């Protein structure tokens, strides 16, 4: 067997093995397992579909605050990061009295509310 043939044969064998639907296979894990969607893997339940919809409503340069009443630091942190990721064209502020938008989680659902 020539060197080129050996190279191609082994590389092809690895690719074929990765296609075998064997859940525990390291090659399947290497290939990304079942595959992920385009959204962030939040540590807490946050609906990325709603966040993408909120992004369409907020204009570039608009200000917003995030609010998760009673939320843990992890929940607050995830909501803050979600805002910075999906509402990147807007500006997150600390002062709750100031912005027209609130990205808020209530009853375990995220939503965007217009204050003014």
């Amino acid at each position, binding site marked *: *067997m*020539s*060197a*080129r*043939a*050996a*190279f*191609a*044969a*082994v*590389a*092809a*064998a*690895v*690719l074929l093995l*990765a296609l075998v639907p064997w859940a525990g296979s*390291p*090659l399947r*894990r*290497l*290939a*990304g*397992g079942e*595959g*992920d*969607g*385009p*959204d*962030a*893997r939040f*540590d807490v339940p946050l609906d990325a579909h709603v966040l*993408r919809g909120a*992004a369409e409503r907020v204009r*570039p340069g608009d200000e917003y605050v*995030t609010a998760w009443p009673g939320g843990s630091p992890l929940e607050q*942190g*995830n909501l*803050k*990061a979600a*805002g*910075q*990721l*999906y509402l*990147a*064209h807007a*500006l*997150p*502020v*600390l*002062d709750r009295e100031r912005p027209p938008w609130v990205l808020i989680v209530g009853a375990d659902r995220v939503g965007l509310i217009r204050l003014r």
Partner: protein
Amino acid sequence: MSLVLGVCAVNTAFVAVGYALLGRPRWSWSWAGLALLVGAGAVGTALFLAVIAGLHATLWTAAGAAVLLAAGGLAAGRRFPSNRLSLASPPLDPVAAGAFGLVAGICAVGVVGGFRSSPWLDDAWGIWLPKGLALWHHGLDERLFAPNGEFVVFGVPDYPLWWSIVTSLDVQAVGSTDVRVMCAQLALLTVAFVAAVARLLWGHVRPAVLAGALLLLVLSPELWRHVQGGIADLPVAIYLATGVLCGALWLRTRATFHLVLAGTCAAVALQIKTEALPEVVALVAVGALFARRLALAGVSLLLALPWLAWRSAHDVPGRAELDFSRAERLPDALRATAEHLFDPTEWTVLAAAAIVLALLARRPAALLVPASLYAVVLVAYWIDRDEIGYLVSTSAYRVIDTVVLAAAVLVPLLAEALLEQREPLREDRALVGEP
């Protein structure tokens, strides 16, 4: 544009810039990995400097930077033509070729996995990518990047922005917020690193040794776990290790190409994470012990200045306090990092192999390279203000990436040195009739 098309378009542009900078003698497919590393590094760095100067990190700015860099590279290539390093291509037997095929196959699957993975590390989608998106929409706006009490500021505001900028370009090319670009980009850089190591060492190390060393790397589960985590420590490690390899090759070849490349890689690493600054200083100091001219790679440190100046002008604090009184933190840091370094289920036996080979080849000084990087990691834990248990549990597994990859590029060189030392011994034995 789809995820695959968008990320591939950006990286094709990186490769084109990389080829222009590498020079005409290296315009062949075998240099594509290094071209991607150089192109991504140069465009990302140029764009980082542009945002510090007030521009937004858009695809248009990136295109302008790419055109300027490519034109500069081509002009420099005409003015200072570099010679192709005329190393004889070593014979490749089917077994070594099969091992290279295994490396290539694993890398191909790893790239597929990158494109199919959303980063599991929350810092990736919670800090790094949002920063890049902000640089696209708002530029380096001090309201978002410097603590001010009025706006919500990004976490770790002291970190440089290369990784944020490069992944932001991917998102812009894709056309929608898709966090998988981080893993896809990291997979491409990782495979480019493997290809670059193979190309740079081709002719310096026998193929079987090179294939074996690369297999040790690509068979490391932790390498691909970090790819699928979108972890910024990995690109730092990739650039530092490439720089280390170029420095080691320069000691053999004394070729300007290798020295310039070592400095370039160090300069890019400086644009990715704050830790790279002391790591480059440590590597330059170690390099100067081997040959004083290697200290020239320290010129790269100048490229850390623009970001440091911006931070200083906007009162952006660093994370570490220079408190050297808490030495009791060191044993915990040492234990945690060593567990990850030497765990064969994480990084196979890369670190152990480097140590054993350096001792067998009577080149213990080579260990100063990974040891100096390891020392920086330990000092960082020593002087950090966070609780040490929390700190090591959340970062020890990834801050050692630089140490592991630096060891990984030394393994083939040390193995080759060992084999070269043994060859005369075998010949002597044959002369006196021993088997």
